[in-house]
């Protein structure tokens, strides 16, 4: 009996062994080193020098660029993610019909998500928002003055937000699957009782979809915080104009691999981890007030 238990444990650890080894080598050791580096001044060439909390105090008191980067990243996340989820939900509801063209539409709306993370799309985005790009042409067509997207830091940030919202397709697919799992009988019963479209939306659709929305909100928030490629490509690695696209990850990358402030960059990474942990907990703990689980006791 004892022997078979041992055998079971051995098999278990044989199979998940690669994960444990990888976790120690590529996650735990780096995390601990990163915490240590965050208290040092380290340029990669001479050994790290312990400076206590200096990196952290410098960030919040002596580095306006850091605070600016933090601020625009918050704007990017809190404007981009809700807009993206809202578009995803609206389009998912529009596509939740029996029309034969839905398959085609679903593919078309998903395509931006499919290619959105690529360098090619970031390059494309850079060109369509250029001074004589098609976005300004379209604005001119409907009578709005051309915007100099690369001349104004706020406009440049919104250009990045639009790129993020443009990729609502993958969330849309998840919402669509969620909508299809809501029993049709609920809507029929509500119709019999004379419920309006909005009543059905707020009393059936939204509560039934809330667990999926919660999951998406968390994952998208984390993902948005780590956005790197579009900011890097669109600003050609500078974060400009006037640091308007200097998202957190880009600034961290520049501190680490352009200025070789490895200690400072590690401290930035830890603050990022803490912010993400706080945001995730907030979304998670407030979820009991707005997430509806089908059966009591959760999933």
């Amino acid at each position, binding site marked *: 009996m004892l022997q078979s238990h041992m055998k079971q444990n051995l098999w278990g650890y044989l199979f998940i062994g690669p994960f444990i080894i*990888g976790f120690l080598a*590529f996650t735990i050791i780096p995390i601990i080193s990163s915490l240590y580096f965050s208290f040092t001044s380290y340029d990669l060439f001479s050994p790290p020098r312990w400076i206590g909390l200096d990196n952290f105090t410098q960030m919040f008191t002596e580095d306006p660029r850091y605070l600016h980067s933090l601020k625009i990243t918050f704007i990017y996340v809190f404007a981009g993610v809700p807009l993206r989820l809202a578009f995803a939900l609206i389009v998912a509801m529009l596509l939740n*019909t029996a029309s034969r063209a839905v398959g085609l539409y679903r593919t078309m709306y998903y395509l931006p998500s*499919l290619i959105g993370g690529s360098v090619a799309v970031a*390059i*494309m985005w850079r060109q369509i928002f250029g001074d004589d790009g098609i976005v300004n042409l379209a604005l001119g067509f409907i009578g709005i003055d051309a915007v100099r997207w690369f001349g104004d830091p706020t406009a440049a940030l919104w250009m990045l937000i639009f790129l993020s919202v443009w990729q609502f397709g993958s969330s849309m697919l998840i919402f669509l699957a969620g909508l299809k799992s809501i029993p049709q009988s609920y809507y029929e019963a509500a119709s019999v009782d004379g419920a309006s479209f909005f009543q059905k939306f707020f009393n059936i659709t939204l509560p039934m979809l809330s667990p999926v929305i919660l999951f998406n909100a968390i994952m998208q928030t984390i993902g948005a915080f780590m956005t790197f490629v579009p900011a890097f490509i669109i600003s050609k690695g500078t974060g400009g104009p006037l640091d308007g696209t200097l998202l957190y990850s880009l600034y961290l990358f520049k501190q680490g691999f352009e200025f070789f402030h490895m200690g400072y960059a590690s401290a930035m*990474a830890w603050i990022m981890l803490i912010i993400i942990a706080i945001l995730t907990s907030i979304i998670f703990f407030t979820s009991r007030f707005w997430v509806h689980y089908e059966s009591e006791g959760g999933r």
Partner: protein
Amino acid sequence: MKSKHIKKLIYHVLVGGFAILLLYPVIWLIMSSFKPSSDIFVTAESLIPNPFVLENYAIGWEGFGDYGFGTFIKNTAVFVAFVLVGHLISCSLIAFGFARLKFVGRNFWFAIMIMTLMLPYEVVMIPQYIIFAELGWLNSLKPLAVPAYFGHPFFIFLLVQFIRTIPRELDEAATIDGCNTFQIYYRVILPLIVPALATTAIFTFYWTWDNLLGPVLYLNSPEKYTVSMALNMFLSNETVSNWGAMFAMSTVSLIPVFVIFFIFQRYVVEGISTSGLKG
């Protein structure tokens, strides 16, 4: 009856029109790649290349320095292949362990795995770089490919969910037939999880093909550049203003993504809808 038709028409104009509006930039990029470089922004409002030229593709394909674009595609293909094999082997083994085997500490390690799902890469980026530098692995594919052989939390989770839907009776029958644990994995489970493995392979391809940060950190000689890095180089050399070549190679870089999507659409859509993978 008539109003129903009108409603339908409005729906298709609205939903279809918005879809075309969203895709317009991509269509514009592709069509512009067939215009002479000097025309692209002069005739930006028109989609039809007139004259229709292929010179952008010829120029872009030459790459830069001594290395043609073909070299970058080959490098990226090798990179993708190594990561793909790594993910398929390691994730299926690990997922089988979590989904089917009972051992002390399983729930603990599973929770750890879920937590690493939410860990930002930035936190481990710098120490990993230092570790790989110490190992002498800089300017090689090793730092990018070796970690793939130790699993990836997203795909492990996806496969665990999939394996849980397979009836345990199959494992029990195989045990009675004299299979050991590895044989159950290899002969019973592996053939049944092919659809989930396909999803794993497709998303591994997308994420690796698009990866820019990793190659930017670890590869520094142009003969090892990936497609993403080459496009970034085109952009840095923009002073030449060769829009056409940049657009052409951007289009080339999107072709494999589109082709794989249209062949395996079912797995992509199911993968996203059931597991919440971000695409």
